[in-house]
């Protein structure tokens, strides 16, 4: 009824019965959210708070306004805690504040949302760019002085893309010449493909020694462009990626793609689940959190930061079959049988 929203905020903490946890994820164009984050999180929450816990999920399709509306809905539903992966970490602050005003604790997930958040867990985003860049530099070795690299950054409308880009630049600048650099519209592989073709025409095939690609999808587009320009499989310049998507893992095994960045979803989702359940139950977070973070508006937010890991051919084997990664069956389809065998994956 109408009054329920306003009145029982205080009584919530000692409310009996199953908890309701809200989960807001930012987009549906990358596989990870609905493949890993959502199921892993649901599993952990139910494990912690009981099977009858209700989890309300919405995906904002990369639209900050839609996400704001979804927060409103969560408030209407009077969830006990909200896990929020912000589309736009900065502008989401008013929504966070609104939730906070209604005594709904917000756990910032993956992106450090501004506003009165109660906990934060994430992969270290600037570090992603650094890992990509460092691996690339290492792979290039002395070729770094002889040629140029092409940088394929993410979409300018995505604040995370900026962090990756800055992280990468902090490593690359001065070490290697960046021949061409692109902000890829909509993170689309097709656009990355088009830009890469432009770079190939403009710089010439011979000059390009490596490609920094911010994620795996774009790496796919870049690699087809490189192949189209006549690079054979074994002379392919190294191409970076991120997200450890299935197809990228397969490409890494065959050697087409140099590396990706693997974000350990299990610790990250579990951290979020723990925070959320504890907050919902009104418990302290001190035992859970491993550090504190200051956001622009909040000081000392209990935090768990999970380190992203580079994923080159050598590392694939160790993740296969683990939670938050793919099974050997998924990776080793008929086409990749040989590559799998060579890497020793069964």
């Amino acid at each position: 009824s109408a009054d329920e929203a306003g009145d029982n905020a205080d009584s919530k903490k000692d409310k009996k019965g199953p908890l309701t946890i809200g989960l807001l994820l930012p987009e549906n164009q990358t596989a990870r959210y609905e493949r890993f984050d959502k199921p892993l999180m649901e599993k952990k929450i139910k494990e912690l708070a009981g099977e009858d816990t209700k989890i309300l999920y919405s995906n904002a399709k990369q639209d900050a306004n839609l996400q704001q509306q979804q927060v409103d809905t969560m408030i209407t539903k009077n969830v006990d805690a909200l896990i929020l992966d912000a589309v736009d970490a900065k502008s989401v602050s008013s929504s966070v504040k609104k939730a906070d005003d209604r005594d709904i604790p917000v756990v910032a997930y993956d992106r450090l949302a501004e506003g009165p958040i109660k906990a934060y867990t994430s992969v270290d985003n600037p570090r992603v760019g650094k890992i990509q860049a460092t691996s690339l530099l290492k792979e290039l070795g002395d070729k770094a002085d002889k040629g140029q690299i092409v940088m394929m950054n993410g979409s300018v409308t995505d604040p995370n893309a900026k962090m990756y880009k800055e992280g990468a630049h902090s490593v690359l600048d001065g070490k290697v010449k960046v021949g061409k650099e692109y902000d890829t519209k909509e993170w689309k592989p097709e656009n990355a493909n088009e830009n890469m073709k432009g770079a190939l025409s403009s710089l010439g095939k011979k000059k390009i020694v490596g490609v920094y690609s911010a994620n795996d999808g774009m790496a796919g587009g870049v690699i087809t462009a490189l192949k189209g320009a006549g690079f054979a499989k074994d002379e392919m310049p190294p191409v970076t990626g991120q997200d450890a998507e299935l197809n990228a893992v397969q490409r890494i095994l065959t050697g087409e793609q140099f590396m990706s960045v693997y974000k350990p979803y299990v610790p990250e989702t579990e951290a979020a689940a723990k925070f959320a359940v504890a907050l919902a139950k009104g418990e302290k977070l001190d035992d859970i959190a491993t550090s504190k973070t200051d956001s622009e508006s909040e000081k000392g937010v209990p935090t768990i930061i999970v380190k992203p890991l580079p994923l080159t051919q050598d590392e694939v084997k160790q993740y296969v079959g683990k939670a938050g990664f793919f099974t050997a069956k998924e990776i080793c389809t008929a086409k990749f049988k040989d590559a799998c065998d060579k890497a020793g994956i069964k």
Partner: protein
Amino acid sequence: MTTGTPTEETDGAAKGASTALDPRLLVRQEGFKGYAGDLGRRLRTGELGSVPVVVGLLIIAAVFQLQDSAFLSANNLSDLFIQSAGTGLIAVGIVFVLILGEIDLSVGSVSGMSAAVLAVFNVNQGMNEVLALILAILTGTAAGALHGFFFAKIGVPAFVVTLAGLLGWNGLMLQILGPTGTINLDDDGVVAQLTNHYFSDKIAATGLATVCSLAFLGFSLLDARRRKAAGVPSRPLSEIILRTVVVAVPAFAAAAVFNSYKGLPLAVVIFLGVVLLSDFVLRRTTYGRKVFAVGGSSEAAGRAGINVPMIRITVYAIAGTMAAVGGMFFASQINAANQSSGAGSLLMNCIAAAVIGGTSLFGGRGKTWSALLGALVIQSINSGMALLGTGSAVRDMITGAVLLAAVVIDSVSRRTQKTAGRA
């Protein structure tokens, strides 16, 4: 002599009577019985105006309510109305453009750009907020007028002009926002209040409903008196009362809903005000008449001495202005301007709102109320889906299906009605 022969101005149904009374005209019986009979006939022939869309809306509400009882809660309904204001305001501008028989693809980008203008001037440059707001809205007007100019004077197809606008203004917005990206607005500023202020005094909502109902009744009576005096057909008293009831019931219901949450939202007042004003402009002023004329036949309108390019430019300016106003509401919702402002499904939502509400894409027909109805339909679907919490794939499919279903009711009822030309 003409008393008792009713006329229906709004939808052009054939019910007046010529001074040389046409004997083939089926005059409705007086009183409620005649009204009921007439309703039955309309039901059969499909001349139902907005009724099917309203029915669609009610069905959507009922279905979601069955799934989750929070849907019809005062809280959710109140949120839903506020959230539909942004889309709806932009859709009002789109309705003008659609009546012209044209399209405006730039509204999303323009709304984003003006939000950026506001944020940069107000937050970064420290300009007075109201001044920045006015400037931001004028930016929209100017962008719209520019589209209108290229279309009306240079002759570039409106689709291409506004597509160029879609790209160009988005680029400009990114440029304006610069490296900072998102700019948060003042939490207590005017813009923030747009979607966050409620007139919590219960008098406000109830009073507005009363004023609206009484004004409707008053103008109807006045009109009827003038018509009688001039000897042209007028509405009988019974009909006026019935119509007033049809207006008053939802008005008071809405007031009750708002009052049982936080009160009358400012956003709703503004949105309603804009719809009423634009409806007035379209139906009661020469300018509106000219817009319809150009939309019906620009050739005929030109021959009647109407300055067709002028009308086109002003209509695009209106669309740009409304896009900017809508942009303020979107900015208010997230209390920020960011790089994705105005992108994504915003454009489609706004055009869809106008079309779902019943405005034709082929020009010459439409009312701004359709923006209100359409925005409510779209927002109800969004809100309902958020309540259900389904996966995004299924969600898209359901959204598509519901959208189609909502309009199928309208189309089927309209199909029985033979309309001249394409509807």
